[in-house]
């Protein structure tokens, strides 16, 4: 499958990438690892006329300890996130969810920033970032701004990143003592989650993010509130699909997805020590 023809520009720096975006506007699309974008282009579901390649911006590939949170560069590959000792010890849920993305070949190329910018409700990493209450750092012509993971995902493949902006960093609160669990239900190896759930319990800090339960990655706020006020995992998980507009497709209808969400959240809560 051959994508529609496009012009290719390689960004030499983050500023250069912003300049190219400013120049080409909505004709341009950023490409990092390309493992979300290239399939879309091959299926001709996307046809940008200019690709701005930020894949060589190695300065945006890092995991830094920044006190109360880890700062993860947007171009850090899944393989590097899942194997990073800091991520594993401080934000284990993120390492686990990342290790379930695609397959090893995909994780050698795909980046955390690319996955997040894609805004796919079916992808694993956003659910973990929602549960962990991560913050996205977006750079644009006017400087940097921060957007919470709750406000970042706006719709199907739509995020808060503007046309002339670039996601540069993801800040993930450190929770070394937290109990957590990543649950993914799929039929075949390497498949997208039919439904997935990221669960994190750290005292009063309870986070639950859902995969493929709406048109965008969503938080299960009712479950979080219930656990915080002492509900059992069975009672809390019954609220998992509350407020969700779950999709129906060949794999599952909305009703089955709601059932799966409750089961996966219950398993996640139990694995995280909620009675």
């Amino acid at each position, binding site marked *: 499958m051959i994508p529609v*023809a*496009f012009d290719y520009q390689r960004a030499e720096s983050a500023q250069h990438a912003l300049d190219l975006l400013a120049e080409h506007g909505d004709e341009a699309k950023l490409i990092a690892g390309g493992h*979300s974008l290239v399939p879309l282009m091959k299926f001709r579901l996307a046809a940008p006329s200019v690709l701005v390649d930020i894949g060589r911006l190695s300065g945006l590939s890092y995991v830094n300890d920044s006190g109360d949170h880890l700062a993860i560069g947007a171009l850090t590959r899944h393989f590097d996130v899942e194997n990073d000792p800091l991520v594993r010890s401080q934000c284990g849920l993120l390492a686990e969810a990342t290790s379930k993305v695609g397959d*090893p070949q995909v994780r050698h190329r795909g980046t955390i920033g690319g996955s997040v910018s894609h805004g796919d409700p079916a992808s694993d990493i956003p659910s973990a970032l929602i549960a962990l209450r991560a913050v996205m750092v977006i750079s644009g012509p006017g400087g940097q701004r921060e957007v919470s993971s709750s406000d970042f995902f706006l719709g199907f493949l739509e995020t808060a990143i503007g046309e002339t902006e670039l996601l540069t960093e993801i800040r993930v609160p450190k929770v070394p003592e937290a109990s957590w669990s990543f649950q993914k239900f799929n039929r075949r190896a390497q498949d997208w989650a039919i439904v997935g759930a990221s669960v994190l319990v750290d005292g009063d800090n309870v986070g639950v993010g859902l995969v493929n339960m709406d048109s965008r990655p969503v938080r299960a706020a009712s479950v979080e509130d219930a656990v915080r006020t002492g509900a059992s995992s069975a009672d809390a998980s019954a609220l998992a699909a509350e407020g969700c507009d779950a999709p129906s497709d060949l794999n599952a209808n909305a009703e089955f997805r709601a059932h799966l969400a409750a089961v996966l959240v219950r398993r996640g809560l139990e694995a995280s020590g909620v009675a």
Partner: protein
Amino acid sequence: MRRSQLRFSQTRPKVKKLQVEVTVNGTRQSHDVEPRTLLVHYLRENCGLTGTNVGCDSSSCGACTVHLDGEAVKSCTIFAVQADGQSVTTIEGMADADGTLHPMQEAFHANHGLQCGYCTPGMVMAATSLLQEIPNATEAQVREGLEGNLCRCTGYHNIVKSVMACTRGGQQ
């Protein structure tokens, strides 16, 4: 301003070929290609290396797996221009110049790790990359580590057996 990933530009650029230089199996290759040329097509059509197969063409099956700077990747999901200046190893680059097979190829041969053979180049490339990362991989790690490679003959048993023979434990 919201932006969707489903972007359709109204204007189309004039197709302009770009020079791409990739070191393939130790040999410097230089070709002018369209930016939309996929690495797998570059390898097969520009470099003439047809050992790398196109299977599903949608980054699921792993038949197109090659090493990019030493790591397994799916060459159907990378544009050749993205690999400019990097080094690629294909199945043709695995055996020694005198024809001595790579230990992984030898293990696939000895353990009958193939049936029709279509997935084999990708399996060998994925397996060697896996064992570089986890030299003493367990069977479970091998099975999970090869999840990006499909064998439609379902010959997984002997494929896993072949890879296990190349693990640190398997060589003892």
